[in-house]
């Protein structure tokens, strides 16, 4: 039970180092904070290595320099490649059924589906009770957070 509690206390969450690209002009900051010192400007397309994440910030290394950027300014796709391909999802509207070799749930599968009411009623089998859910949360040291005034 204590094991899960450790996750509550840790700082940045280390992630497997992966390359990502800056998708909008931004600044590399010294700490995960919008008011933190700016280390350098980053241009769209700049490649960075992701080291860790803390809240909505990613710790990255760029040209040997460590710092933090907002997670929304990073993408793992090569810049300029994909957006044009699936802009607005239109490209995929015509090929939703093409899932050869994949046991998928595409539009075709949905259109051909015969409603399975017994399966829907059967979902109640695994439903948890509120007591079970609370005990389960407690096991991991999870508590319902007081809603901060910023989020009311």
């Amino acid at each position, binding site marked *: 039970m204590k094991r899960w509690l450790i996750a509550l206390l840790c700082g940045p969450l280390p992630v497997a180092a992966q390359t990502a690209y800056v998708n909008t002009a931004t600044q590399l900051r010294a700490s995960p904070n919008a008011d933190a010192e700016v280390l350098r400007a980053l241009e769209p397309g700049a490649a960075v290595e992701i080291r860790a994440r803390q*809240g909505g910030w990613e710790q990255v290394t760029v040209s040997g320099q460590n710092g933090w950027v907002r997670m929304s300014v990073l993408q793992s796709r090569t810049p300029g490649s994909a957006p044009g391909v699936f802009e607005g999802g239109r490209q995929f509207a015509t090929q939703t059924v093409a899932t050869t070799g994949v046991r*998928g749930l595409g539009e075709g599968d*949905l259109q051909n589906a015969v*409603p399975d009411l017994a399966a829907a009623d059967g979902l109640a089998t*695994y439903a948890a009770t*509120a007591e079970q859910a609370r005990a389960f949360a407690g096991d991991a040291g999870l508590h319902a957070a007081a809603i901060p005034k910023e*989020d009311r």
Partner: protein
Amino acid sequence: MAAKRLALWAAAFGAVVVCGAQAFDLDLNRALGELKNLKTAVIGPDLQEEEEIGRVAAATLLGAAHPVSDPALEAYVNKVGLWVALQSERPDLPWRFAVLDTDSINAFAAPGGYVLITRGLLMHLHSEAELAGALGHEIAHVVLKHHLHALRREAGTQLMADLSSEAVARSSARAHLDRQLIGALSGQVKTLYSRGLDKSDEYAADQLGAQLAARAGYDPYGLAAVLQTLDGIDPSAGALALLYRTHPRPADRLAALMKISDRLDAYGAQATVSERFDAQLAAFKKP
């Protein structure tokens, strides 16, 4: 339990109506009106109708993909999901969660408290906080009644009226819904779930979903991390086809979600619970 209570009340009320009719030649329409009021007082017609619509919507999705046959995993997802749903404005719905046995990467919500996540999406997650965020998005759709409103708009008043009367009939004796009615509603469900909700509904569900996960004590950025993962998956592989067809692009959703980062940051650094998640998935992968 609610249905049982309703049946009991209806039986008692019925007896009064019959006696009253003999003695005072009570108008039948008035009696039916009274019965409707009584039903409203006990469980509410809206909730009954929502449950019927949700049942057919979930049944349609389950007709396309079955749940995985792993009771431990299903129980785990139900506990995470209910813990998040308990933080919502509708904690008392009969929340039911399931993992669909498909490689496609997606998740679905249906009115009345049904939430389905695909094995394909589950396998791309890294922590319980990410699972809570993904389920939170679907829970938000139910709480905000997005599919319910869309189906009510599309289905037309006659279908809804038929469904309501079927729901009343079913509440006392669990009779089968009329086959034609199921077919008509299921057709509307297929159209909606192939076309998707309004983009604004998806952005609203991201926002509330992240907030619900945060209120449950999880890292508020679990959903954001999921969107970042989705953005990195090659969409031409096909597993994301339906998701892309029905949702704004993950990068756009992430950018929109980050606009409320002040509200998410206010929760501070919270738990990701990745160890318990990893243990559950490891047990699932090698049964």
